[in-house]
């Protein structure tokens, strides 16, 4: 009965409802006549109100209540939705969110919402002719509270939310008993809360407590006289329950009666009948459809929650991942030992273990996957607000929100995406007048698309805006000293686009507060590269721009090719390797003091890892070069190494705080023999300029 047990569920569910409010309100803005959307919003607000009231967060409940009134007025066509109304309602949602965040942080969820409440009220009463009707509608929206007053003598439980109704109905269908229990404690009872606790314990052994009046919190805090009512779903018969409760000492009286949901709903409907026909049919439809939908949704939701998933603290998953990483290291060691010993039985066992741990790895990594929707869902609001601030019309389209990514990647990718979206809105999509002149629809299109491909996740942000003007970028880059005019002449289109990501570059002629001062785009690029991903730009003037981000599925375990340079071992990520080759010295071409090879008809520059890493010379040079062909985007390079050791799964480890930012090294890993091998950052070995 601990309230704290529920608070996490409350916060999670509230967040979901707020998200759905946001989502549907924006939908409503596009299609204000859609009554289904209004109903959807109404339902979310209503559930939120119910939960908040049960948990004792009054401000939250009040605000939702007032919002609900406005929505009800909208539903009954007394208030028409326009942008101003939405702004205020959205602001209310913002406040709700702030409250929930506050509660999550251990606060009381208090906020000063008087002004907002007033605004909501004035919207609700917006049309003077509808004042009387409004009152009526308020009555309708608070059907439960009025009915409580009216039907007090029948049953205390008139205020049931849809979820409770569903549970009760389901239990009726499954021939459980819905019992309303009235308990009165003796007036000389000293520890009322303790007795309540004992009664509840008895009840919970018998079945499920659906609701209590006063609420559980109030009962625990002894905020009741001597009697209380409980709604119980149980398999046991009424008299059995009654006798059990009476065994609790200091209980004076117990009355157990059957509780009927239908009766309650009928009484609701009877109120409806009193209202004018139009509204009645509307309300009936509403209730019917609501109940149909909720009974489906809620019951399926419920089974999912109880049977199919459990909430696990992310720390535990991290701990599991760490342990597994240790296991991978030891697995590498075992593989090495079994290879050295050449013992066939041992080798077989190790192979089996390797396979199993490979499966285990897939499962653990999958467990850490989170849909990218967690990042995407905050964008519709942001885009709407930004578009308003900028005086532009923008339509946002989101595809592939269900695409899953490792949690660590999700945590990092939010800010770069925000920046790219801001950039598209500010620099990409033109103001409506200009768009019209160009013969494009006044509303710009911004689309976010996420999808899996191979071992990577792609996120594309595309707009149908002005595109990037190459000559403008080049001019700017030259004037900012990023490139020289000689360099500019030799640059390909994609190379020019990459210039946008260089630090100290900003193409907007006027610096707006929406997209930054050219510090942002290089941060975006760095963040994405730090995640082991890459970003590319494609653009057509007046047609639009596409930013395409490629990200690895996971960060911590990667496949590498182990290589040897003199006596030192290095690891090259498999994802960036095209293939390996062995070429004779005589095949190496020399041009301008640089080495090249002819690789399948392409001229590929060679990079000597020995020179880049200043590896001390310990052996004679061979007649043959071992070469690893790596790529970055569409560019290739060959790394000259001394020998290939083989492919291995390794755990990526940071070099430590002290050695951050080492050139061409992205991290380290521990090999089977316990030694550390450095992981080569191939991206920094290929220059894009």
């Amino acid at each position: 009965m601990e309230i704290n047990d529920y608070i996490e569920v409350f916060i999670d569910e509230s967040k979901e409802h707020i998200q759905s409010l946001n989502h549907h309100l924006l939908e409503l803005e596009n299609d204000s006549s859609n009554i289904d959307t209004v109903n959807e919003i109404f339902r979310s607000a209503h559930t939120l109100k119910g939960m908040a009231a049960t948990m004792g967060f009054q401000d939250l409940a009040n605000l939702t209540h007032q919002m609900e009134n406005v929505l009800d007025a909208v539903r009954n066509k007394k208030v028409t939705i326009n942008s101003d109304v939405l702004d205020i309602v959205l602001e209310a949602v913002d406040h709700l969110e702030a409250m929930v965040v506050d509660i999550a942080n251990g606060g009381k969820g208090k906020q000063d919402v008087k002004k907002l409440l007033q605004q909501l009220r004035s919207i609700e009463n917006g049309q003077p002719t509808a004042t009387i009707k409004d009152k009526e509608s308020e009555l309708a929206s608070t059907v439960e509270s009025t009915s409580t007053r009216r039907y007090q003598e029948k049953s205390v439980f008139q205020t049931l939310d849809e979820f409770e109704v569903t549970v009760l109905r389901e239990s009726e269908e499954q021939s459980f008993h819905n019992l309303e229990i009235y308990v009165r404690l003796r007036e000389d009872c000293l520890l009322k809360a303790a007795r309540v606790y004992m009664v509840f314990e008895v009840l919970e052994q018998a079945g499920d407590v659906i609701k209590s009046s006063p609420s559980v919190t109030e009962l625990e805090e002894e905020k009741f006289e001597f009697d209380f009512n409980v709604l119980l779903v149980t398999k046991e018969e009424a008299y059995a329950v009654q006798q059990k409760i009476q065994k609790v000492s200091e209980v004076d009286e117990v009355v157990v009666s059957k509780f009927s949901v239908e009766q309650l709903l009928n009484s609701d409907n009877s109120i409806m009948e009193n209202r004018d026909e139009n509204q009645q049919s509307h309300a009936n439809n509403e209730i019917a459809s609501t109940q149909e939908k909720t009974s489906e949704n809620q019951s399926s939701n419920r089974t999912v929650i109880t049977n199919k998933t459990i909430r696990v603290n992310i720390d535990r998953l991290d701990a599991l991942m760490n342990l597994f990483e240790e296991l991978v290291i030891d697995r590498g060691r075992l593989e090495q030992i079994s290879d050295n010993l050449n013992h066939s039985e041992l080798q077989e066992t190790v192979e089996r273990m390797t396979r199993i741990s490979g499966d285990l790895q897939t499962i653990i990594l999958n467990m850490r996957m989170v849909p990218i929707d967690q990042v995407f869902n905050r964008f519709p609001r942001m885009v709407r607000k930004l578009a308003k601030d900028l005086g532009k019309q923008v339509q946002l389209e989101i595809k592939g929100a269900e695409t899953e990514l490792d949690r660590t990647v999700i945590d990092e990718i939010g800010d770069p995406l925000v920046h790219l979206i801001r950039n598209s809105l500010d620099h990409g999509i033109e103001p409506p007048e200009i768009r019209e002149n160009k013969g494009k629809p006044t509303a710009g299109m911004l689309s976010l698309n996420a999808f899996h491909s191979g071992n990577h996740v792609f996120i594309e942000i595309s707009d149908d805006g002005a595109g990037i003007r190459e000559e403008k970028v080049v001019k700017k880059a030259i004037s900012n000293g990023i490139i020289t005019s000689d360099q500019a002449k030799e640059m390909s289109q994609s190379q020019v686009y990459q210039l946008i990501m260089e630090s100290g570059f900003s193409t907007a002629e006027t610096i707006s507060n929406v997209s930054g001062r050219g510090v942002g785009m290089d941060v975006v690029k760095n963040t994405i590269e730090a995640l082991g991903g890459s970003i590319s730009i494609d653009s057509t003037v007046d047609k639009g721009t596409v930013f395409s981000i490629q990200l690895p599925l996971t960060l911590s375990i990667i496949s590498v090719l182990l290589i040897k340079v003199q006596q030192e071992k290095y690891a090259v990520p498999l994802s960036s390797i095209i293939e390996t080759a062995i070429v004779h010295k005589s095949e190496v071409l020399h041009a301008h003091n640089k080495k090249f090879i002819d690789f399948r008809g392409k001229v590929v520059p060679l990079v000597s890892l020995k020179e880049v890493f200043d590896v001390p010379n310990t052996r004679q040079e061979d007649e043959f070069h071992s070469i690893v062909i790596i790529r970055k985007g569409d560019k290739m390079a060959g790394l000259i190494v001394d020998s290939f050791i083989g492919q291995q799964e390794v755990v990526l480890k940071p070099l430590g705080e002290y050695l951050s930012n080492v050139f061409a090294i992205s991290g380290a890993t521990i090999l089977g023999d316990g030694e550390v091998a450095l992981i080569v950052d191939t991206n920094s070995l290929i220059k894009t300029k």
Partner: protein
Amino acid sequence: MTNKAKQEMKAIVFQLKDEEYAISVHQVGSIERMQHITRVPQTADFVKGVINLRGVVTPIIDLRKRFSIEESPFTDSTRIIIVYMDNMEVGLVVDAAYDVIDIPTEAIEPPPEVIGTVDVDYIDGVAKLDSRLLILLNMEKVLSKHEVNELHQIEG
């Protein structure tokens, strides 16, 4: 007891060439024997590389080089002192490491300022114990990332 603790500082004493240095025990995680060090290219010359310290990749600094003392080959007594500071974990290669000793606070004096010696900022003070002279190190300065980065910038 508290009075006594106030007056004494527990320190790990180690040796570099002929001089003895001291670091507060609070900053020391462990003392390790010499082991294979993986060189990290393109770093400051006093950064020896990284080791695998029970699953954690830990950077190693050669204190002789850091203090511009001439190099000498590693011996059986060479130790790596693992130091913790501000979420950083760094190993220091020293010629030898001895036990923990209590240094009375009154024995600690500020670093002597003598004309003709190079000023170094990483010395907190000097402690005289009987006939021994211990140099107290300021770990923050010894491990200042500033110098690592500076060198890195010149090279890169």
